[in-house]
């Protein structure tokens, strides 16, 4: 595991498994989705108006920088959503597949 976040305590919790961009990720019960994702990865999503990856900023639901997507296109704010076993998460916007018209 080579994530951005490092666990300092509370490491005896039950394990939880989620899928991020098709890859299995192991987390712990009680993690936020953000901690689950950043304990094994380094970012959550891409900025819309810049080249950089984003990993959240405020962790208290104020900056809105950590929104990720469920497999069916639902939105989750990673810092304030508890991780759930079997969650399927995408770090890119599903609307990419919308048809272009005109």
């Amino acid at each position, binding site marked *: 595991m080579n994530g951005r976040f490092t666990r300092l305590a509370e490491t005896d919790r039950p394990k939880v498994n989620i899928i991020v961009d098709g890859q299995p990720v192991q987390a712990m019960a009680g993690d936020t989705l953000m901690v689950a994702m950043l304990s094994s990865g380094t970012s959550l999503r891409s900025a*819309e108006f810049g080249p950089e990856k984003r990993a959240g900023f405020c962790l208290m639901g104020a900056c809105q920088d950590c929104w990720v997507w469920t497999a069916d296109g639902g*939105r989750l704010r990673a810092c304030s959503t508890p991780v759930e076993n079997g969650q399927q998460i995408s770090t890119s916007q599903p*609307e990419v597949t*919308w*048809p*272009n*018209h*005109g």
Partner: protein
Amino acid sequence: MSRSDVIIVGGGLMGCSAAFFLRQRGRSVTLLETDLVGRQASGTNFGNVRRQGRPIDQLPLANRAIETWRKAKELLGSDVEYLQSGHMRVCYRDRPENVEKMEQYAADARQMGLDLEILTGNALRARFPFLGPEVLAGSYSPLDGHANPRLASPAFARAAKRLGAEIHENTKMVSAEKIGTDWEVRTEDGRIFRAPILLITAGAWGDKIAAQLGEPVPFATLAPTMSVTEPVPYAIAPAMGVMTPVEKETVYFRQVARGNIILGGSTRAISYPDLYRAYVLPQNTVSQLQQIRRLAPALGKLNIIRVWTGIEGYTPDSLPVMGPSGKESGLFYAFGFSGSGFQIGPGVGETMAELIDTGKTDIPLAGYDIRRFAKA
């Protein structure tokens, strides 16, 4: 005291574009704006640059306007984010009579140089798969589009200024009086401006000034409901709207090139023109979102990140007051565009400039005469 050929009261899209076109015709112009240019309805509206759906006899004005929208970047020297990406008007299954109306409208509009394509069934679904199951048919206008209202009026004001117009912001007119052949306009800060021509383009405040000048107009000021989503990849080119007689169902959306989808329509709120404030009512936001999901269920996944409104002036027949005064020489009006002035705005400015400069215009304005309200 300052004197010019024309004083324009009101720095929205109508006033700013009139100033621009008057300067192009060599007339000296002083524009007085209570607040900042383009801050009210001109800057807060949905941004539809839509000809279809307008009264057929308004299409010459709309066609004139679209010419300006198309060359706005070169003409104004700045980008107003005009996208000629099409406009789609749809109707629902519970009002099948609208299809016939759409077809009739398309036939009439063709005579006026606006080509529309009626789409139904598989052709409609194939082209616009994101439309909801309740959508029965649509009328597609490939050469309409949308632009950024926050940028348009200030761009006209800057361009007019470059051509020599005097633009006075934070300058509120308190009285206008005909003295000899000149109009004398006094402002709240005590300044006096004179000109033989006075043009009132004061939007939702136009009725108050008209009343002051002895020509009252029945008028309502309303606050439209606007929302914007988070940015999502740019994929929906045309602006989409619903054709329905029910205010609540009348919603529309457009995606800007940056990706945000702007949602507009459904029930309007009252506004407070005397305070220069209007507020979005949450119940209107909720009903708007409900109607948007009916139109395009896939948008239901997106988040809205902001709502806003502005103050729009409505006349009883939803047609503007546009043209010369019925009482005084040298006095002109262009206000009360009833929530649909943005597209025709540059056409209104150009036509008023023409009318003021030459005394005539080929654009039909008979239906907008202020005297229609004097009769009642």
